[in-house]
């Protein structure tokens, strides 16, 4: 069974919602759509207060190269253009809309028919993904159309589709592959056309045997797409780890996957691409896992972007009595929420509710130099050393020790028996080093 070799951990999988079919969450009464939901520059709001808008209508335009359009996920009236503290914990501009009915833009094909014939040309695909605001749904929310524009001098050989879902608890990608596999596969075909490649691999960890079987069965209809079952190991969903596992190629330090001829996209993104290209549907909803050991009904929900998180939790049985922490994303890389009012955004793959007794870190004591952080680091770094350099504020030394290679997977801190906040220090160090490098560029 294939996997990446360097480092890695195997945290408790806890895929509580793996058997729960995707349900459609009823429309909320109000949505709040942050207009900066993607990696890169924020988008510019193009609607005004009081405007009556339809589902799928453009509300913010991405104007920079790396930026992305945002569309209304509901129909109704714009009540205010203000700001909101989003899942990242920062204040961002946002459009608030009171929901009235569900009037969709007429250009969107809402039928259930699956259209497998890809009529759009490569250029049309790229501009469609740009118009419809498709971004990477694995979490990094990198604008998808930019990913298809291969830089001068580079060549894409393979498309890798990330169906790994290595984060514990999360099951949205799993359900999506199982229930909407065919549409997702067409999405992969579209991405292949957009990249001008003939071969795509879908990497799936073998703790999702039903999804692997299903996709293997239908893959006969999709020549050029190969399903690769992978050994269960975190962080296999990291794109560098996935490329290593599937193709045994190593993306050089500081470089992007295209350096080794690869482009990586998530299965959720592939489905969104299908809907955008074949149905002309902008990215206005996504599958979100709502889960937790104390939650009554761990679920996978199809949610309109902008729906407040507490509505998802209510639908899944309400906030448990013993709740200690609510996380946007999985337990390894997700962000703890400060409020349950925050809206679901394009990058929200799951809402995880941890009970009080699992919400606190273990006490911090002296590092005993056991070197476990080194042995689990998938990037071959020395987290103990980097954290120390960062703690002592010698950021130049941290840069020399390749702190920027850190993918923030959290394996080091997960495994540290002394409970040291290694990743906290690494994140701080990465930030500071980033500032140093930018200032260097200015001189």
């Amino acid at each position, binding site marked *: 069974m294939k996997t990446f070799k360097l480092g890695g951990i195997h945290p408790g999988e806890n895929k509580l919602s793996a058997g729960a079919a995707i349900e459609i969450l009823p429309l909320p009464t109000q949505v709040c759509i942050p207009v900066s939901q993607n990696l890169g520059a924020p988008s510019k709001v193009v609607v005004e207060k009081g405007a009556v808008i339809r589902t799928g209508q453009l509300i913010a335009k991405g104007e920079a190269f790396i930026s992305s359009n945002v569309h209304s996920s509901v129909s109704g009236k714009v009540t205010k253009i203000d700001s909101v503290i989003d899942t990242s914990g920062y204040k961002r501009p946002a459009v608030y809309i009171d929901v009235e009915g569900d009037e969709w833009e007429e250009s969107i094909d809402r039928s259930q028919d699956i259209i497998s014939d890809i009529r759009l040309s490569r250029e049309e695909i790229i501009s469609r993904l740009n118009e419809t605001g498709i971004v990477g749904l694995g979490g990094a929310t990198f604008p998808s159309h930019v990913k298809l524009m291969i830089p001068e001098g580079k060549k894409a050989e393979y498309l890798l589709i990330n169906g790994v879902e290595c984060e514990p608890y999360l099951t949205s990608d799993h359900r999506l592959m199982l229930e909407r596999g065919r549409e997702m596969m067409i999405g992969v075909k579209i991405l292949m056309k957009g990249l001008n490649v003939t071969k795509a691999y879908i990497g799936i960890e073998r703790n999702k045997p039903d999804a692997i079987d299903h996709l293997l069965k239908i893959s006969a209809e999709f020549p050029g797409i190969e399903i690769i079952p992978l050994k269960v190991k975190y962080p296999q969903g990291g794109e560098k780890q996935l490329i290593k596992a599937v193709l045994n190629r190593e993306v050089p330090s500081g*470089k992007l996957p295209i350096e080794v001829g690869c482009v990586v996209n998530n299965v959720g993104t592939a489905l969104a691409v299908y809907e955008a290209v074949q149905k002309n549907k902008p990215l206005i909803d996504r599958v979100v896992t709502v889960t937790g050991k104390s939650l009554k009904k761990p679920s996978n929900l199809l949610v309109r972007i902008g729906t407040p998180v507490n509505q998802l939790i209510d639908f899944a049985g309400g906030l448990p009595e013993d709740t200690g*922490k609510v996380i946007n994303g999985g337990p390894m890389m997700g962000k*703890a929420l400060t409020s349950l009012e925050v809206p679901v955004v394009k990058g929200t793959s799951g809402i*995880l509710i941890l009970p009080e007794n699992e919400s606190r870190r273990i006490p911090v004591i002296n590092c005993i130099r056991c070197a476990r952080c080194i042995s689990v680091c998938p*990037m071959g770094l*020395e987290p103990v050393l980097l954290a120390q350099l960062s703690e002592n504020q010698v950021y130049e030394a941290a840069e020399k020790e390749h702190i920027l290679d850190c993918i923030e997977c959290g394996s080091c801190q997960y495994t540290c*028996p002394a*409970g040291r906040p290694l*990743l906290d220090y690494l994140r701080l160090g990465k930030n500071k080093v980033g500032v140093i490098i930018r200032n260097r560029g200015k001189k």
Partner: protein
Amino acid sequence: MNLLTVSGSPHVHDHQNVKSIMYGVVVAMIPAIFVSVYFFGLDSARVIFISVSACLFFEWAIQKYLLKGALTINDGSALVTGVLLAFNVPSNLPAWMIIVGALVSIGIAKMSFGGLGKNPFNPALIGRVFLLISFPVQMTSWPIPKALFSSSVTDAITGPTTLGILKEGLNAGKTVQELMANSGFPGYVNDMVGAQGGSLGEISAIALLIGAIYMLLRRIITWHIPVAYAGSAIIFSGILWLVDPTRYIDPAMHMLAGGMILGVFFMATDMSSSPMSPKGQIVYGVGAGLLTIMIRVWGAYPEGVSFAILIMNAFTPLINKAFKPRRFGEVIIKK
């Protein structure tokens, strides 16, 4: 509603902490403790009890009165040092000497450098070497257990260890074969089970190996240091033995006699004083193996494990700098 806890990722932990690691080491030492009590009687229990109590006391007293910090004796590390120190002394050592050893181990080798995880040298070995140099007579007069299955469990006779017999005999011009044929020589089986003179924890290779397997399975130690250490010692002593089997001890006897197994699995693997990257651990292990055999063969002392490990401890910071883990996507710049 209660307030939500907010902290950076990761939000889960694998629930192995320092305490569980330290107590894991203690569990791994239980077979060797039983063997030592079997062969040396209650004397052995006495040494372990005094050593552990003294180590815990000194750590507590230093934290409370000198450093005025949070008490750390519950983390299990002083307990491990206490048992390891006891493992490295003869079972008839006077109580006060054990206490002096504990003070040196905990006070000088551990707490003066900052306590848990900060010691550059293995504390128990510093204690042992201090005692060996200060009280060479008491530290090298070993109660000799009778061979396995003999009528009396222990007797009061003291004498040299397996390595001591060989060293002395070789210096006197005898051959290894003559010495091993001697009736007083413990031989392979007794050395493996533990019926040999020696420090109380080092005598039984089997008991120590059971503990070692437990530590490997629980991921408390990795294979790198033990394999590199034992491997280099076997290869180096094997070469010498092939050159002249009458003057050099065979590798199997090197492994079974003296503190080799104890050193390889329990002393050299001390986390704070050994290198961190797998490559560095192998370099360290190979160095310790070579040094051990060199000291045993050419040094003044019959035993070389303690010195070899302490010398390699001293190189650990350099090894850590020189032998980094292989980075993912490392760009090799050709000159």
